[in-house]
């Protein structure tokens, strides 16, 4: 263990964080129920409106066409919601797989690992597990099949990269990529899902993935700059290069160009 790292303090912070996390999860579960109820309600209301519309419009051709259009629009919205949630769950499962793999490496989860890095990876993996569970819970409650697999596009990328993970910098780089894709995907999904509750769910997770990325970017800069000893809570700010202050948030507006398409991880 590096002498500059106060492991005891870090463990205390993790305990405090877990307490906060438990509170957050209680809220999250309540929120998740609200998300699902709202989505179901939206679907029910759409169908109820369809019935009324169908009656009012009677047997006319226009009425039948309107009924069919509204029905397909509702089904499409619901289908898109489920696919977005399944794709998100697939990305989360891949993140969990990646961090789990990383923890088998001696320099991340073994004897030569920095305790701070090991603890961060462990905690981050747990958070991704919770995200995956939340997305899949919403999927199943909406009538879809849970996504238990990993994202089909990026799984081969991770598997190809795994043998080449020779040091912390390699793992951090791969993790940054996955966190960024997740954050971009959920940011984009905010604008694609059909209910306000699902928008809030995706936003609430996007911000967390962005935070993972911010810390990983900072760690990457410290590793690259030969300042591994400063990967501590808190770091010795006086020793940090000027660029370290902003490397964690490179964009003023979070991009979405790398967002996974809604159907990318949908269960077929």
């Amino acid at each position, binding site marked *: 263990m590096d002498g500059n790292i106060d492991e005891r303090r870090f463990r205390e912070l993790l305990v405090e964080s877990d307490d*906060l996390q438990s509170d957050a999860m209680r809220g999250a579960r309540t929120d998740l129920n609200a998300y699902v109820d709202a989505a179901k309600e939206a679907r029910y209301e759409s169908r109820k409106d369809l019935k009324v519309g169908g009656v009012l419009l009677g047997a006319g051709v226009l009425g039948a066409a309107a009924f069919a259009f509204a029905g397909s629009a509702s089904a499409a919205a619901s289908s898109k919601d489920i696919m977005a949630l399944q794709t998100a769950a697939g990305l989360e499962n891949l993140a969990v797989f990646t961090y789990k793999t990383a923890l088998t490496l001696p320099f991340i989860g073994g004897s030569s690992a920095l305790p701070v890095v090991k603890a961060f990876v462990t905690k981050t993996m747990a958070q991704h597990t919770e995200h995956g569970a939340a997305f899949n819970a919403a999927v199943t409650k909406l009538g879809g099949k849970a996504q238990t697999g990993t994202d089909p596009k990026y799984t081969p990328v991770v598997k190809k990269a795994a043998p080449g993970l020779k040091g912390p910098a390699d793992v951090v780089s791969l993790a940054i990529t996955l966190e960024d894709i997740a954050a971009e995907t959920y940011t984009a999904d905010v604008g694609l899902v059909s209910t306000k509750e699902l928008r809030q769910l995706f936003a609430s*997770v996007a911000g*967390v993935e962005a935070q993972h990325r911010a810390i990983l970017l900072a760690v990457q800069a410290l590793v690259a700059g030969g300042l591994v000893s400063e990967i501590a809570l*808190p770091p010795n700010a006086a020793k940090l290069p*000027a660029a370290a202050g*902003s490397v964690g948030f490179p964009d003023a507006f979070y991009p979405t160009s790398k967002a996974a398409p809604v159907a990318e991880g949908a269960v077929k």
Partner: protein
Amino acid sequence: MTTNDKRPHEMAISEAELSSMTRELDTMHNDSFSGVKKSLEDFSANLSHLATGKATARRSFLLGAGGLAVVGGVAACSSSGGGSNSASSTSSSPTGSSSATSPYTGDLKVVALAAALENLAVAAYGMALTAAGKGTYGTVPKAIGTFVTVAMSQHKQHAAAWNGVLTKAGLKAVTTPALTITTSEVAKLTAAKTIPEVAMVALGLEQAATETYTFATANVTDAGGIMTAATIQPVEAMHAAILSFVLGQYPVPDSFIGITGAVGPAALTV
């Protein structure tokens, strides 16, 4: 970290360095801004008719305002304890502090609130830079100077983005931190004499902004407005994570960003 050193040292970064950082920053963020510009233009297009009072917009206006009113108003943040750094709370009336004759209503009230929040962040970081330049905090590490400069610049861009929507809708830009929480936040900044103390105030503001935008994604009704909030929220969350890291707090404490610390529209004073 020389956080307890209160001797009147000069700031460790020069004006020239700060200027250079700002120029680099402007270049760096042009690309990301072009993407959100499209969302904002769409948002502006959708909202521009609202200033003319056309009835079609009224329903979404009410939905937007009603949704945000749930958050409640904003009170002064607690000065200590409780583990909360939040700049907001939910104790006051949703309508109590807001100007009764405000030209900003519905979605546009949220836009004005967002602009005012960004202005408060810019003002806070500006105050911190000024105080640092006077040696109030002792020697300021270069990385801290960079953080403040870049974060402040990003908040300026966020404010400009939101104000662009207001002006295109025929309303006046919100160019001040016109919020009920501003006085208390400024008081806390003025009282701060060390880098960690300033960072704690900034962390509270960043967390409040993050949660406000999280809530906005669900309660703004316009698609462009939703996406604008969605693309700014992660950036504020990243600012908060780095501040937590610097303060020695666990940087990603929650698995889900909450909304209990969101600033409600009643906090807007214009």
